[in-house]
């Protein structure tokens, strides 16, 4: 099996699992409420099968096509995602402004923005802008 076909197979297995879970969730629904989601799930099942078959034909065993989700390519974005998740968690726990200040400084330091005063200036300008727009003007309760 080629690398690309294997990647598609794993994607397909994920979708099969999702379809099975959601179909199970429709079991206890009244029939009128279950018709539309079930129709969508059956359609997704068909399309998923076509997708797998399509890539198995398109990328035979001899194919040199590489998959796109390699550890090398997704490592940094996944780290960034963890950073974003931590930021959202902090937003929930300590409030928007402290969390955003930590996130912005941390992100720019990690992405090697220089000099340090530029980082502070951008962070301060951002915080003032958000305060004026959301707190004073739009009255969003983030304090």
């Amino acid at each position, binding site marked *: 099996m080629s690398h690309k076909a294997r990647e598609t197979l794993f994607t397909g297995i994920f979708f099969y699992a999702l379809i099975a879970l959601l179909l199970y969730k429709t079991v206890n629904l009244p029939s009128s*409420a279950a018709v*539309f989601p079930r129709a*969508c799930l059956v359609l997704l099942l068909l399309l998923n099968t076509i*997708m797998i078959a399509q890539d198995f034909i398109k990328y035979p065993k001899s194919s040199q096509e590489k998959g796109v989700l390699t550890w090398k390519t997704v490592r940094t974005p996944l780290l960034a995602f963890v950073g974003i998740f931590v930021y959202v968690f902090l937003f929930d726990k300590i409030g*928007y402004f402290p969390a955003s200040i930590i996130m912005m400084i941390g992100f720019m330091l990690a992405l090697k923005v220089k000099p340090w005063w530029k980082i502070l200036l951008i962070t301060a300008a951002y915080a003032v802008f958000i305060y004026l727009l959301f707190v004073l003007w739009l009255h969003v309760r*983030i304090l």
Partner: protein
Amino acid sequence: MREIFLSALMQFFTVETITALLVGVFAGMVVGALPGLSASMAVALLIPVTFKMGPTPGMVLLVSVYTSAIYGGSITACLIHTPGTPASAATAIDGFPMTQKGQGLKAVGMSTIASMIGGTFSAIALLLISPLLARVSLMFSSLEYFLLACFGLTIIGSMSGENMVKGLMSGVVGLLLGCVGLDLVTAVPRFTFGVLALESGIALIATMIGMFSISQVLISVEEMRAGKTTILSDDIKGLMKGSPLPNRQEMKRVMPTIGISSVIGLLIGILPGAGADIGSWVAYNNAKKRSKHPETFGKGEIEGVAAAESANNAVTGGALIPLLTLGIPGSGTTAIMLGGMMIQGLIPGHDLFVRQGGITYAIIMGFLIANILMGVVGLLVAKPVTKLTVTPMAILCPIIIGLSAIGSFAIQNSNLDVYMMVFFGLAGYIGRKLGFSTAPLVLGSILGPMAEKNWRQVIVICRGDLLGYFLHRPISIVLFIMVVAALFTPVFMRYFNKKAGGNGLLEEEE
């Protein structure tokens, strides 16, 4: 009529109304450009501000914010692939590739001109033919709305990018996302997994911010690791010079598209429930289908930007037609605006055009001028705004993350929406890497509930005789023919393409 017109002029040309107009245009543009802040949110948050104002300046402020927020969303859609509002998602498809090719200034300029023309066209329609067009929308029943939703869903095929099957899968996942929440008829929770907050459904704006903005941040981080530091690569930064105005040839090419898209946007705006987001998708799809070079769509085609932008701004005027004449809001934003009108003592209907004609025509006048002003201001700020693209991504990324978080939170003051935004950000990133387009998912989640709700109403209304009911509704027959035509057009195009020996998009997809 002459007295009403003079009264309208007197109501409009006051310091308070003109100030409201200017503030509304500028504020709407800023709010629209900020990812996650929608026109509906801006209007909702501004309604309390209008309490202390008179009916004319208060309503002029709201309609100005409404139209310029829809336009403002296109600026970030073109420049950083982050639609400021859901209505600009279709604009990002061609606007961002234009920016990547060094034509960011032109993309913003084109979206400004198209928005101005679309909005002005709809304002004139609102002024002249509103009672007539509103009468047509009154003839729509659930069956017509269901068919309209189906017509919208046929767009998914053409939104699919390089892999039709994966695009359709994205669309179906979107339809399933639309099922999350309490069932409208039986009130039974569907796919909520016991989470109470999910019973009101998936927060569409948060989903969209995640899909478009956070996934873009993750892709940018990946690109930064590969050595790319700005949205534009260094070798094409120089192409950012020049005028934001398209040249004469380009204008000649896009004008028919702008005209048709404005009409589409206007008609969709009149139909309750179908907002600027649907209008822009339908117009984009139509432009792509009519184009002699559909393969260029999605790769920085100026016509794609023009179609989406003229339509979404034309929707605004269209949505105001049934609101003012019949009290039926044509979109979510106008539904909120209806509350603002009631507070001001303006009751939609015949009286609004007769007894309160001065106020009503002053509001319409304000809407017309707001659209023109929006174009002028937009063209003036297009060049400085385009500089966003040469800002280092290391600075843009944390700003986008911060804005996305506050934008997702501010809609319902809900932290769950922010977590949802992050989840869909990762899903969007992985999906985009694997070739699943994000646009069909958003479209599916908008149109899915509309299709299901109306279909179930049709089943009840027709009492077992669906065919008989259908055959007695000429508008349904027309819409059905449109759906079938939309479904089979790609097949015919493929046939004619092969016959002509062309190598269009459909062949490339194979």
